[in-house]
């Protein structure tokens, strides 16, 4: 009788250890689930190393404004096929990105900290269809995808804060309903 209790305790402890172990080790999987901007680096840096991403963001923000891709009117033109502008911006950005990644792979370019550059392959799921369609509807309504939301807010269109908070709420709702949605 005592022995079986001991055994039970032992198994319970084992389970506990396994659970904590899993929690720790699944963090990367949970973080990268349905994710795009992913941290691939295993290096730990002091906080101020993040300033380089602030600078990259500032440059990207300026590009979004000056290319006018954050203009609601430009998005309307694109979806009415009234202008080539948006197709030109996105198309030439993709071509530049493709050539860059091809060069990175070909010459095995490393990061400035000497890490090899890694790319996580995307897995297909139905979310890319259903979610893609829903996002498309929202993109045409607001005239903004997430990046432009931040940039437009920066230009001083304060009511966009409500759109940004709604987008956070939409993401939260997705997290809440995730298990019940088709994937």
């Amino acid at each position: 009788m005592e022995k079986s209790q001991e055994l039970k305790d032992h198994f319970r402890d084992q389970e506990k250890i396994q659970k904590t172990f899993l929690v720790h080790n699944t963090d990367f999987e949970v973080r990268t689930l349905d994710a795009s901007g992913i941290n691939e680096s295993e290096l730990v840096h002091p906080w101020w190393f993040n300033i380089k991403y602030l600078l990259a963001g500032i440059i990207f923000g300026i590009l979004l404004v000056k290319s006018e891709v954050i203009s609601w009117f430009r998005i309307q033109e694109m979806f009415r096929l009234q202008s080539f502008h948006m197709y030109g911006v996105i198309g030439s950005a993709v071509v530049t990105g493709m050539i860059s990644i091809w060069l990175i792979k070909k010459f095995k370019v490393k990061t400035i900290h000497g890490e090899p550059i890694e790319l996580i392959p995307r897995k297909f799921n139905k979310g890319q269809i259903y979610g893609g369609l829903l996002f498309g509807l929202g993109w045409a309504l607001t005239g903004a995808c997430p990046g432009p939301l931040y940039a437009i807010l920066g230009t001083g269109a304060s009511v966009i804060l409500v759109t940004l908070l709604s987008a956070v709420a939409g993401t939260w709702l997705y997290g809440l309903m995730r298990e019940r949605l088709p994937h």
Partner: protein
Amino acid sequence: MLEILRQPWPWYIAGPLIGIMVPALLILGNKSFGISSSLRHICAACVPANIPFFKYDWKKEIWNLVFVAGILLGGYLAFNILQNPGPVLVNPALVSDLNNYGIDNFNGLVPADIFNWSALLTIKGIIIIVGGGLLVGFGTRYAGGCTSGHSIMGLSSLQWPSLVATICFMVGGFVMTNLLLPYILKL
């Protein structure tokens, strides 16, 4: 010099520069270009509510939040130092189309006739400002990325699921603009 920079930048200058963000982030620290994830990190940091999808160490992705803070700052700088001398020059056909819906102000980046605080008291304003935001947040996470993560980063690295996502973004956009928006703008 500043005068030239103040003009709108043509697509063949701005597009490739946006594309360079992809290798820049990879070389700066092995980061995949993407922005919609920042919305999720905000959820994980502020209102995780015990939802498994938000139970992860968001501090490991803090770079993404710093990056979007930079975008906000960049928007501020571009608007205040490098602002276009005039309004965004769009197709005259769009101008006359939108005039029919009472949109006459083409000065800002967003139409002031729709995006203003008092519009939040109208059904049209709530659908566009709040409903649109909800769709953007829900849709991008469901799809696993937005225009940056899928259409630019994903296509650049030849991921076919990103092509599927991009096609669906476009289909959704065409349906909204041409079939649904005319009714919403009439409200």
